[in-house]
């Protein structure tokens, strides 16, 4: 009897203890450094460390949280999925400075870049980029439009070159690995890649 009571008590303690620990600990996502505290995201102009809090006009600016509230969420940057927002028609940016009726020339062409190691291969989608950009924005100043002419390096990208010319500045940051490394390596892919190389 005593043994049963002790067992039940011990079981109860073991059950409650992890719950209490998790309740006491910080946000379970705190281990992942890429997940910033939601409270710090898109801070209002008076607290964002960018605008002058002593300027009387600063508090007249609309808060990003309010402005972005109706837009799709993302996990990094300013936490808005701007591509989805555009595709859903939630925003309608003007494409040309002179001609309000001009629309982009969208090209649906995917470039798959094989990578070494365990990371999935990179897929560069022209479609999502040409919805925002013109060919001349990247070609040839950033990327030469020629196979084999653009050896890519994550180090260079992190330093603001190549893809880093935009990503991390005006587009989602390179901490979103899966956004680009999105094509898993499969035996079929590897076979197809070898055939392409031949």
């Amino acid at each position, binding site marked *: 009897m005593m043994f049963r009571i002790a067992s039940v008590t011990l079981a109860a303690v073991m059950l409650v203890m992890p719950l209490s620990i998790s309740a006491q600990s910080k946000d379970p996502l705190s281990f992942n450094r890429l997940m910033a505290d939601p409270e710090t995201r898109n801070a209002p102009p008076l607290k964002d460390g960018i605008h002058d809090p002593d300027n009387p006009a600063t508090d007249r600016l609309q808060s990003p949280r309010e402005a972005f509230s109706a837009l799709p969420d993302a996990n990094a940057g300013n936490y808005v999925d701007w591509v989805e927002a555009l595709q859903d028609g939630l925003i309608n940016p003007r494409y040309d400075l002179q001609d309000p009726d001009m629309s982009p020339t969208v090209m649906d062409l995917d470039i798959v870049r094989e990578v070494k190691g365990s990371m999935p291969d990179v897929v560069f989608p022209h479609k999502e980029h040409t919805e925002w950009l013109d060919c001349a924005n990247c070609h040839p100043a950033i990327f030469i439009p020629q196979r*084999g002419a653009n050896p890519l390096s994550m180090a260079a990208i992190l*330093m603001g070159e190549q893809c880093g010319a935009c990503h991390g500045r005006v587009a989602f940051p390179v901490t979103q690995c899966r956004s680009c490394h999105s094509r898993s390596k499969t035996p079929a892919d590897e076979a197809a890649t070898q055939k392409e190389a031949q």
Partner: protein
Amino acid sequence: MSESVIRSSALLSSARHHRLVPALLAALLASGCASTTDARQDQSATAAPVTETAAVTPDAEPASQSSATRSKGGPVGSSSLRSSPLESASLGASLLAILEETNDPVIPPEKAGNGAAHLAFIARLIEESSAAQQVSDSSNPAAHLRRNEARAYYRSAVAASEAGDAERADELGKKATKMMFMAVRLAEADEVIEVKHERDYRRRLESVNALLDAHERVGAEDELGTSFSQTREVIRQQVARAETLHQQDQLDQARERLDAAYVALKLSIQAAREGQTRIRSLDFATKEEEYQHELTRNDTHQKLVGLFMQDSDTSEGMKRMIDNFLGKARELRQQAENQADDGNHEAAVDSLNESTGQLVRALRTVGIFIPG
């Protein structure tokens, strides 16, 4: 009155601002422009911004004071301005008086009252900023006129501030700022604009040439036939005509033609490649080439560790673990470099792979998930 009329009729390429007044006045009178609210309200909608905003309105006209206070940034104007409203018949004399009075530079307000900091900023904008310098250097009398209007608004703002009307002072301060920015836009020298247009043309030409080369490769890779190549030849001719126009200093027409060629080129490439997926595989001609690639990859992972280690929340225990992985990575990298120096690039590649593997473990310890 349009900007071009002011610029061409005044013919004042090098006059200082006080010498602009008689010629500017003549130009304004000749073109029938008025700088009173009444006169401007009669202007058509096609009038340039110069005429659309009131430089001096009965409400905004500077309060009267003796001329001795003019240079201190205080209110200026004569009692006659307030007592007799500006009428078209006395436009010339009134405008001349205003221009003469507002020619003097403004200074920040002497009293540190409410809004004084903002007014001081406006004073600096009008007199000391790079924009002010640009206006001073400009040969466009309209730019100088706008700056004088800004000065007049500023003096009125200071008077309102000293009278305790903060809201009015703020409103007039904003008008002063707006006038100054209009002055800056008018002050942009033709040389600056032309240099920009030329640079833009060169960049567009570079893009067109790069895409023409890509068009040729696409045609060859996909075996698209003669019509595709004929399209390219037509575009090349367009580009050649654009270059001819450019050499004849007809930049606008050249750019127009070049843009048309550019659009045609984009559409042609889009049609050829739409819906495709192109795979760029990692092929190395030699082990040495692969070794160079692995070196870059190793560098990248090292930089990533450094980047994510900047977080001060990393505990001491975690730092020791990471240092352990980094130490092993360094040793393996050194081993790889030694092997490469001995010509054994195959072994060097393997060593570098292991080194990068240690860096991946360090990154996972930092909290960055890398699959594997």
